[in-house]
């Protein structure tokens, strides 16, 4: 790992590089992952270093990408497959749900599919309906998968290592809006990992808990700043893992604040935000001083002209928090 600050996408690239160097079973596959180094440059330099047998430019077929990764994983390899944009995962969805998620279960544990499936997600980049989607709910709903989304370079390193070294498939969602927005020195130790299933309290507070993940952590942080200026103390939780999610950290915070605002840019209906809100309601009712509020993307296809308006804004977060506090 470089000792200077690096971006989230560079953190991913370096982690892939290190893991490939360390473990000859690691294979990278996807569209344009070779000479092009990935359209976001997440696999830059890997082809040159590890050759075309381990860095595979795949035909344009997500079903083949996911399916081949499953087959490789079933034979002891450690594939890291890339879907160019999360919006294009659907042609591979059958392979995800039928094979990747269920292979261990249906074979009674004889076979497993420890694939790391990387995909850039989320909007705010002017990409319209097919370069902006956040489909995490579909994966969280599908038993047999683990789903994570880092919001910092350090977490990207730690979660990607956990995914690539773990026993089971991981949907590794990359908030593309953050790819180059933050730089950070990442831990140098080769054994540094972020365990799947653990959230991170980004800011300690007392009045309201803001729960989010991925790119929305930006707006959440800004909202918390504004609230601080107004004398409201917000606790900020970055979920990092969406399934399994860190119930303990969230419930502990709610016990303290009595208020929850869950922020995510995916459409709200039957979403991860719904899941968290429902769980809070189920388990923390007597500690709640206000309804658990969801601030999510609208239940429309992702727009183009109103790209920025679609995303949960700082205002929308503040309004929800204010509602909870004034309740």
């Amino acid at each position, binding site marked *: 790992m470089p000792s200077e600050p690096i971006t989230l996408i560079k953190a991913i690239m370096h982690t892939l590089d290190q893991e490939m160097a360390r473990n000859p079973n690691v294979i990278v596959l996807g*569209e*344009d992952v*070779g*000479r*092009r*180094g990935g*359209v976001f440059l997440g696999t830059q330099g890997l082809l040159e270093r590890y050759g075309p047998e381990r860095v595979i*430019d*795949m*035909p*344009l*077929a997500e*079903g*083949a990408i996911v399916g081949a990764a499953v087959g490789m994983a079933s034979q002891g390899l450690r594939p890291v497959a890339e879907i160019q944009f999360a*919006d*294009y995962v*659907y*042609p591979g969805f059958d392979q995800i749900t039928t094979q990747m998620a269920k292979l261990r279960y249906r074979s009674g544990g004889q076979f497993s599919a420890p694939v790391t499936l990387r995909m850039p997600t989320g909007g705010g980049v*002017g*990409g*319209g*309906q*097919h*370069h902006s989607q956040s489909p995490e709910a579909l994966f969280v709903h599908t038993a047999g998968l683990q789903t994570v989304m880092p919001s910092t370079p350090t977490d990207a390193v730690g979660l990607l290592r956990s995914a690539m070294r773990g026993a089971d498939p991981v949907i590794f969602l990359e908030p593309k809006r953050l790819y180059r927005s933050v730089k950070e020195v990442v831990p140098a130790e080769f054994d540094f990992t972020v365990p799947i299933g653990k959230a991170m309290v980004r800011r300690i507070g007392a009045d309201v808990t803001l729960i989010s993940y991925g790119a929305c952590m930006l707006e959440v942080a800004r909202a918390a700043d504004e609230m601080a200026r107004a004398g409201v103390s917000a606790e900020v939780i970055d979920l990092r893992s969406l399934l399994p999610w860190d119930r303990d950290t969230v419930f502990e915070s709610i016990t303290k604040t009595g208020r929850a605002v869950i922020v995510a840019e995916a459409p709200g*209906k039957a979403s991860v935000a719904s899941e968290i809100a429902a769980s809070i309601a189920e388990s923390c009712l007597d500690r709640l001083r206000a309804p658990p509020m969801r601030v999510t993307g*609208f*239940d*429309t*296809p992702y*727009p*183009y*002209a*109103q790209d920025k*308006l*679609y995303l949960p*804004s700082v*205002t*929308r977060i503040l*309004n929800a928090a204010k509602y909870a506090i004034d309740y």
Partner: protein
Amino acid sequence: MATWQDDSFEAFSEQSISLIDASDRWCGAFDLDLDDSTLIGFYEDLLRMRLLDERLNTLLRTGKTSFLAPCSGHEAAQTGIGRAMRRHHDWLFPYYRDQGLAVLLSSADEVLAQFQASCSDRNKARQMPGHPGSDQAHIFTVASSIAAQIPPAVGAAMAKQIQRSDEVVVTTFGDGATSEGDWHTAMNLAAVRKAPIVFACENNGYAISVRLAAQTATATIAEKARAYGMPGYRVDGMDVLACHYVMKQVIERARRGEGPALVDMAVYRYGPHSSSDDDSVYREADEVAAWKKRDPIDRFYRFLAARELIDEGADKALRDRIKGELAAASERAGAAGTAPVEWLFDDVLAELPWHLVDQRELLLGEVGGS
């Protein structure tokens, strides 16, 4: 004379089909049956596509559009396709590199309005640039997902059969698209149902950075038609007449109810994959230069010049006129204004359900809209 009552062009020919030879002359086995003004029209179409890319690049630089997948190098294919279709009658199910073809079948105004996310975009500025669509011009609105237009294209062709309509469907896609599952499901379905559809591949040999040899183990896309029991034609995609005549043949064959066909047009993408791409990372300048020597516009200019249908002065005048027209269309698109906030919610469904009404209210409250 080309007659469309039989298969004048042979499917699966060893050599790819050309009608303009190395010295830029007609080399068809039949007589050229297009009149002079039609030939000039073809040339104008070719030019308009090239100049459209130029205009779009200007719009990009000035921030008036945000994305471009250039069609330069594909003009002969797109002109050949468009001119073989009955305009506003046959249907196009295009992909994102077909802005040239879309202008031919609809208008520069329609396409530029889409590129500029203008209030005058029939598609209500819902997508990134390069995704036109027009019910009036019979163009199914583009979606970015590769090959996703192809099953619906077949469904539309099946509808034409059921409705006893003589409209034919043409769907276009790149070489990379042929690897997708739904390309296959659609090809197979069309052949089984003998649907009136033509599959036109703008085969530029790359899917972003991935070369054809990493995309498929066959030498051509045309031969894939064998898996479906339909004819496949390999065509010189830098030869507008070859593209046109082959497309015309298979479209009219489909119209007669004789089933679908696959046309594999060997073109080249002059520019990067898109305005977000850097193609120098994965291909050599030499290769680009070699293809440009076969430029479809230059070639057709020489073809016309040899027939004394054009000269430098006329060419210059034509270019100026088209540039003016494109600039004016772009102006009009800009002048129409930008999309209103409410459009974020319209058309999710024909009528907004309560949750969208609520969400619209929330947003309008926030941004101070109506």
